[in-house]
């Protein structure tokens, strides 16, 4: 239980003074998140990665397409109908400091969950659940309960937010840049926590701009560029033989601690359009509904789009242009 499926999801924002212009932030994104898997959604600023997370959490509307959770479309649920879904899918965001109200004690976030979702649970049973959730995120309950946000570190606050999500008995967690605000010495602990929760069957969408973090923790990686998936697959495949020029550029830009990465691993793919080599007639930019593919499978589970997806007419391998 807890399978999340995105089918041809689009998001168009209205921008400009009178909302007259539009910004196509997410274009035809489709992927499936299996339970017990961490998917990292990697992209630079403006790639639409946070928008996808927000659409899954229903913090923003889906312009078109479907989001299926265990086969049921949740993208059109409203009001009270959303509650059962929110019990199972929750999010944690980038800045733990601004997720708390500084004038209340930090554990108020747990009380708010109880008031909204578990009004009928007895006080003592609830305290036991809070205790257990804190243990699950490797926090010492005595050390964090009854404290104000400023008395706790960023790592502790962030783990409390994960604990808050766990109280809801969730199947799926959207973790949007949850460690970029944390210090190097504590961020790896939060990452490891995600790994441990995964072993318990939780599905995680790990949204990040940091390739090394995405690579460390995830089972599958999705590379986004300008709202479109350009490459996706098993993390090892995507990172060891990146097949889209954009992914290759990103990987080359990552500063390395111990020696650089060996481009030799992917030299034979450099500059090639693997999508059109496979499907010379296909149009990578056509809406997902109009055809079966906008990504070509170049090895099992490893998908890549046209190298020139922004200007398909420039792709030398595309026979449609000719």
């Amino acid at each position: 239980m807890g399978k999340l499926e995105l089918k041809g999801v689009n998001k168009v924002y209205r921008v400009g003074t009178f909302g007259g212009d539009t910004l196509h932030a997410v274009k035809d994104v489709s992927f499936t998140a299996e339970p017990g898997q961490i998917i990292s959604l990697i992209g630079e600023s403006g790639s639409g990665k946070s928008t996808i997370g927000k659409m899954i959490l229903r913090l923003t509307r889906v312009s078109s397409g479907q989001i299926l959770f265990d086969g049921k479309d949740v993208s059109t649920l409203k009001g009270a109908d959303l509650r059962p879904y929110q019990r199972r899918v929750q999010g944690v965001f980038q800045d733990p400091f601004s997720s708390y109200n500084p004038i209340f004690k930090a554990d108020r976030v747990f009380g708010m969950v109880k008031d909204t979702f578990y009004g009928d649970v007895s006080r003592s049973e609830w305290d036991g659940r809070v205790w257990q959730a804190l243990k699950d995120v490797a926090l010492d309950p005595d050390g964090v309960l009854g404290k104000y946000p400023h008395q706790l570190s960023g790592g502790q606050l962030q783990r409390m937010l994960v604990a808050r999500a766990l109280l809801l008995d969730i199947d799926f967690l959207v973790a949007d840049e949850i460690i970029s605000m944390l210090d190097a010495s504590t961020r790896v602990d939060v990452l490891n926590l995600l790994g441990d929760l995964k072993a318990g069957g939780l599905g995680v969408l790990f949204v990040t701009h940091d390739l090394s973090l995405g690579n460390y923790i995830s089972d599958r990686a999705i590379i986004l560029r300008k709202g479109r998936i350009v490459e996706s697959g098993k993390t090892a495949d995507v990172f060891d033989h990146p097949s889209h020029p954009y992914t290759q550029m990103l990987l080359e830009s990552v500063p390395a601690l111990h020696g650089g990465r060996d481009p030799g691993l992917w030299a034979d793919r450099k500059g090639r359009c693997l999508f059109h080599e496979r499907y010379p007639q296909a149009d990578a930019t056509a809406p997902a509904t109009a055809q079966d593919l906008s990504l070509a499978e170049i090895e099992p589970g490893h998908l890549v789009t046209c190298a020139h997806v922004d200007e398909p007419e420039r792709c030398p391998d595309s026979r449609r242009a000719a």
Partner: protein
Amino acid sequence: MTLRVDDLKVYYTTLAGDVRALDGVTFEIADGEIMGLAGESGCGKTTLGNSLIRLDGRMRHVGGSVELDGQVLPIGDSEAMDRHRFHDISVVPQYAMSALNPTRKIGRMSRELIESRGIRYASVKDVYEMRLGLVGLRESVLDLYPMELSGGMKQRVVMVLSTLLDPSLLIADEITSALDVSTQKAVAESLVGLRDHAFVKSMLVITHDLSILHEVADTILIMYAGHLAEKAPADVIIDRPRHPYTKLLISSLPEVGVRFEDKRLAGIPGRPPSLLDPPAGCRFRARCPLADEQCLEQPPFVDVGEGHQLACWKVS
């Protein structure tokens, strides 16, 4: 010797007492050297950078001295420092987006800024335009508003502007933190370019990201809770660190290629001490696996090898 900092102490005055953010640091930066300064948030790295150019109202110069090119900098006296700012010592702040006036075109803002320092714009205009070209920007950016530039472009405009008068020392504080990896690389390369063209003699690059420092810095200085922990050539810090804090810090960094399934990295348990009333002795003591009663006394920052200094009783 470009910069010599001797036992510098800068405290923040708060209602609860003094926060000892910079508690006796001593180091030097040589001509042509790019020194990286790294550490966790709250370790005093930004305080160190700021105290070399501008103490804000809450900061108090408690002791120690700063010498630039043999001249003592009056760091506690903001008015006297004005003569050195921009001319001898300059800064690139973290948020270049907010460093540029949004209501002025870049060219006009630059002219106003330069003339406010008593320099004729015409005398530096050619150099300015030439240097913009060196960091990969066209002259036409001068006719644009800041909002028309990307974050990386704004960061580079500020870099060129800051170094226009060939200062001896440039302080770059977290300048890549808000940028994407691909832009980060361009900014990091421009930074090294400024030194290679001798537009600045030496640089202090402050960041929490050690992998960036590994690319740009010659030497790396690691700070912990207001004290210096270790200083060594960049390769030595990354590959053969000796201070227990540096070792734990480096081993907790995920790199491309390391995966959770293959190798579980560990963080450092605990958190840095409060600097309001810091514990005596080594400040890393509470989190250090090697600590014993000797560490109740503060370890000196001593030489342990060629250009390699550290403060630890257990390894020196």
